[in-house]
Structures are given as structure tokens and as C-alpha cells.
């Protein structure tokens, strides 16, 4: 893709939701979400399972209607013409298992009116193999190649790295960043908080609502956690929880988010536990717990 391709698109916001909401009967799946994805931006949509990420994506893609508010793709409704500039990798990959790698790519490219690009090296040797016979990492790579075959302006990736090994995950993120550098707006959903650092900006969803957005540092803000290092971590964990301090395990460290270090130290001391107690910046996952609790 060249920069001139993007210049033809007037809106800086490639994807936008404005107070968008969606109800299924009595169930509120998404409520009052306002967000956007701009050119060259990698936006991470984070949240636990059932937080409303997939419903929001389906609204942005035009697969389901909004119950309230509005969504826009490339500055307008996500109609057929605008979707032709969109690349989408669903969680299930959307590949045909009974077709070969080459056939899948040919179909996808033709559906978007493009010609199939050359396969990357890793897939070239498997070009005539059925997709069902490929390892998951290669399947994900193929799904990416299919989504990029028509030079999209927007990429929407639903859990793109789910179930792949560390190396394959790194390669997929490299691809995502390459696209962003070329001006493509990328929206990535994930529930793996450690992938947050790969994104330029994060959107945090909890219980159908967008509870925070910004960079990782913006979202974490002044939230801190108390890290407890002790030999008897299992007992420390139990004691803190009994005392109403919601503790989490991080390796053999016990962490209590949004807690007072002095209070934690006191609880452990009362229980006769020797521990090193330090106040540290919270992680994005810990901040999420705070926001979800709120």
C-alpha cells in the first residue's frame, strides 16, 4: 500500500463508535461505547471473556446493528463498498479446511477483487496442502495473508495470536506493526494482557462498557500494587484474602492491587509471617481488576 491510497480516504478516524450500544433482549452486550482507530495506529481492545469485545467488533464491521448510538467505517456506514477496504481475521480464522493454502488465498483475493499475492516463504512449501493439515501457527499466518491480500486500510483482528507459540506470535505482531507503519489502522482484541505493550493505545472493556482508554501508562495511572515476597507464599496468599485484601499470585510473588503497603505488612506480621513488602506500579491486568471492581 502506498500513502496515496490512504490519502484518498478523508477521515482520519478509520473506525469509530459513538455512544454505540447493543442489547440482546434483556442482555446488554455493549453499552455506550465511544472509541476510534486512526491511521497508522494499533489499538488493543482488551477485556475478559464476555466483556463485549466481539460484539463491539461485530457492530464496527456491520455484522450486527447497533441498538443505540452509531458506528462508522472509513467515515461512513460499514457498507459493502467500505468493507472492501477492510481486512478481518476472525477468532475462528475463517479459512476453508477442505481447500489448500493456495486455494484459500485465491478465493479470498477474488472475493475482494484483488489478485492473490505471492505466499510468504513459510507458506510456500505448504501451498498445496489442505488447511486442516496445517499447524495452527501456519493457519493464522495464512489468515493474515488472506486479510492483507487486497491492501486493506483497516485491519480488524479478533484474538489473532490465540493458541500460537511465542515465535509465531512475535512474527504476527511484526506483521501488524509493518501494516501500521504503512498507515493501516489496526484494531486487535485480546484477553492476553501481556500483549498490551504491543499496542499504541488501549481500550479496556468490562461488563459491556469501555472503562478506560489511552496508553498503558495512561490507563495504569497512579494505581499501585503491593508485592509480597515470602517463602510461605501460599499462607500469605490465604491470610491476605481472609483479611479482605484480594491477593493474586504472580509466580511465587503475592500481589495485592490498590492496597496500602503498611496495612498488608501489618496483616502478615499479625499472622507471624516474615515477608518483604514493597509498593510497585500496578500492571494493566491489575488496573483492569480495579476498574472491573468499580
Amino acid at each position: 500500500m502506498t500513502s496515496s491510497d490512504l490519502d484518498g480516504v478523508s477521515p482520519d478516524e478509520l473506525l469509530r463508535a459513538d455512544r454505540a450500544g447493543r442489547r440482546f433482549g434483556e442482555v446488554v452486550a455493549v453499552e455506550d461505547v465511544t472509541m476510534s482507530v486512526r491511521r497508522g495506529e494499533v489499538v488493543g481492545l482488551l477485556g475478559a471473556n464476555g466483556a463485549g469485545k466481539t460484539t463491539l467488533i461485530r457492530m464496527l464491521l456491520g455484522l450486527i446493528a447497533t441498538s443505540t448510538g452509531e458506528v462508522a467505517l472509513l467515515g461512513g456506514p460499514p457498507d459493502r463498498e467500505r468493507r472492501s477496504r477492510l481486512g478481518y481475521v476472525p477468532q475462528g480464522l475463517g479459512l476453508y479446511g477442505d481447500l489448500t493454502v493456495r486455494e484459500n488465498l485465491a478465493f479470498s483475493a477474488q472475493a475482494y477483487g484483488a489478485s492473490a499475492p505471492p505466499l510468504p516463504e513459510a507458506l510456500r512449501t505448504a501451498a498445496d496442502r489442505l488447511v486442516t493439515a496445517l499447524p495452527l501457527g501456519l493457519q493464522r499466518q495464512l489468515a493474515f495473508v488472506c486479510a492483507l491480500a487486497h491492501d486493506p486500510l483497516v485491519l480488524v483482528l479478533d484474538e489473532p495470536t490465540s493458541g500460537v507459540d511465542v515465535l509465531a506470535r512475535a512474527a504476527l505482531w511484526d506483521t501488524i506493526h509493518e501494516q501500521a507503519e504503512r498507515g493501516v489502522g489496526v484494531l486487535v482484541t485480546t484477553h492476553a494482557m501481556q500483549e498490551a505493550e504491543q499496542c499504541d493505545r488501549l481500550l479496556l472493556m468490562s461488563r459491556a462498557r469501555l472503562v478506560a482508554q489511552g496508553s498503558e501508562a495512561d490507563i495504569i495511572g497512579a494505581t499501585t500494587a503491593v508485592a509480597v515476597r515470602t517463602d510461605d507464599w501460599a499462607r500469605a496468599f490465604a491470610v491476605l484474602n481472609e483479611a479482605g485484601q484480594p491477593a493474586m499470585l504472580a509466580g511465587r510473588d503475592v500481589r495485592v492491587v490498590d492496597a496500602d503497603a503498611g496495612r498488608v505488612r501489618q496483616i502478615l506480621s499479625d499472622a507471624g509471617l516474615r515477608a518483604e513488602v514493597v509498593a510497585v506500579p500496578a500492571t494493566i491486568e491489575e488496573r483492569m481488576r480495579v476498574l472491573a471492581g468499580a
Partner: protein
Amino acid sequence: MRAMIVKEFRELSRDRRTLAMLIGMPLLLLVIFGYAANFRVPTVTAAAVGPGASQLATTLPSSFFDVTRIEPSGTRADAERLLKDNTVDVAIVTGRQPALALVDGSNLFASQAIVSVLNTFGDKVSSQILYNPDLKTSWVMVPAIIGLILTFIGTIVTSIGLVRERETGTLEQLAVMPIRPSTVILGKISPYFLVASLDMVVITGLGMLLFSVPFNGNGFVFALGAALFLFVVLGLGVLISTISQTAGQAIQTAFMFLLPQILLSGMIFPLDAMAAGVRWIGYLLPLTYFTMISQGVMLRGASLTSLWLPFVMLAVMAVVVFSGATLRFRRDLAPGRRHRHAAVTSGADARRDVTHATDAERNRR
């Protein structure tokens, strides 16, 4: 063990399709075999032609012969035309000794009953069976089986093919692609249409080769009838796919569509022999009308004009079923794809969302 049994009952009570098969199917079979499984044709339609037509009509036992046409000026050719057009089951030509009863052999059980009754007339009436002189079952069954095979491909195979898109998650990818829903539907069913057409040609050819079934009519009329019928059954296949989440559900539902077609279309049990209470079901089934066309064209050489009723019925069914299936499939492909630019939610919109949620829930079941 107890936990397993309780779990099984709980699952079963929530599986509406299996419940329908467990409860509905025995009832259906009972009704069908009680009221429809009857090979004895109680009455037949008859025509009397020739100078003695009026007199003959009064002498025929009305308990069996329902004389619907009396044509004193008619000839043997007129009698044959009445049979060819399926206007009557038997046409008796008078003005000669003995009178000649021309019997429509394409209506197997009726013609067997007619011959049996005519034999009691002694030498007053001679009989001649047309279109299936040896009253071979295979001659009547092969045209009907062509329809059954098309039904099988149209409903079961097509619905499985479409449901597989949903099962593997590719339906969502198709929905995102800039392809029109109508293109997706046509692209999906075209291969099945072609395969079914090829199957039809092969089965017809094999039927003619192996069982010496004649093909007396116009191939174009036959092909037109088959195409219309294929649209109906392919539409049924698409419709089944929209109410099924898995291939297993699709097969179950297609089977429920298929069984009545086999039993009540007149393919096995003659429609005329069925009790009126179940016969009307047969007249709602597309296979009934395709069998009329295929038997009519292959055995009697019937023309498009004389087969207007089954053609019209199939055309109406094709439009209704295919339109319904297409609309439902479009909704599956783009459920409630409405793009709002005003942050206003009307009551109607809210109701539609509830409907979608209810439909999704129903589909899951």
C-alpha cells in the same frame, strides 16, 4: 448410572428436534400407515366416447367408475388424448363390438383395479393398457425415484454444505467480504444444482437402460419440470440450513422433510387410495408434482399444456420457498445489518433486536 440417566433425560428434554422425532415421527408413521398405506384404489375417473357413450355411462357401476367425460362424437384418438392429458384413468371407446377400454398404465394401482373390474364384464368390453402395457412397477417408480434423488441432494446435501460454513466460522468471513448475499447463495447452490442435474441425467439414462423405462415425451418439458423442482428442494435445503446450527441438526430436519415426501407424494401409495384427511398433505409436497411431470413426460409423452397444474404448483412453491429461504439466509449472513447515524432507538428497533436474540436462542436449540 443414575446421574447419567438424569443427565440424558435433561439433555433430551431440551433437544426439541430429537423430541419432535421421538414423539412426532411415531404419530406421523401411525397416521400415514393407518390412513395412507393403501394400494386399493376405490374409484377411478372414466370417460365414455363414441356413439354409445351416453348409454355406456349409465351401465358402468358408479361405485367404481366416476364418469367425468361423455363424448358421443369422440373417437379413439380423443380417448387417447384424455388419457395422455391425465384427465381420466380409463377411456372406453364405444361404437364397436366389444367396446374398447383404454387404460392409463402410468397410474399403476388404478389400472390394476380397472383391469380387474373390466374382467367381470366378460366379452362386452376388451381392454388395452397404454403407456405401461405390462404394468411394470419399475416403469412407474423410476420417474418418481429421479425426484427422490433430487430431493435428497437438494435438501440434505445442500443444507449440510451451508451449515458447514456456519460451523467452521467461514459464514462470518463471507458476511464481512464485499459480496452480495444473493451472490453467496447462488454461488453456494449452483454446484449442487449442477450435480443434481447431472445425477438426474445419469439416473434417467440408467433407468431407461436397466429397466427399459420409455421416454415418450419432450426432453425440454422434463428438464423444465426438473429445474423448477430443483429450485424448490434447493430452497428447502437453504431454509433448513437457516434453522440448523450443526450438520446433525440439518440432517435431522431434512429427514423430517424427506419422509413425508416418500410416503405421501403418491410415489409408493397412490394418492387416490389415501383417506382425504392425509391426501391433502400429499398435495402440498413438491415431489407429488414432480412425479406427475416425470411420469407424465416419460411414460405418457404428456405435453407442457396438459401438465400445466403441476408446473404452476412447482413454480409457486419455487417462488415461495426460495424467496423465504433467501430472506432467512440473508438475515443469517447480515443479521440486522442496519447502519445508524442518529443516536435514536425506536421501539420497533428494540423489538427487532429482541427478535434477533430470540431467534438466535431458538436456533441454538
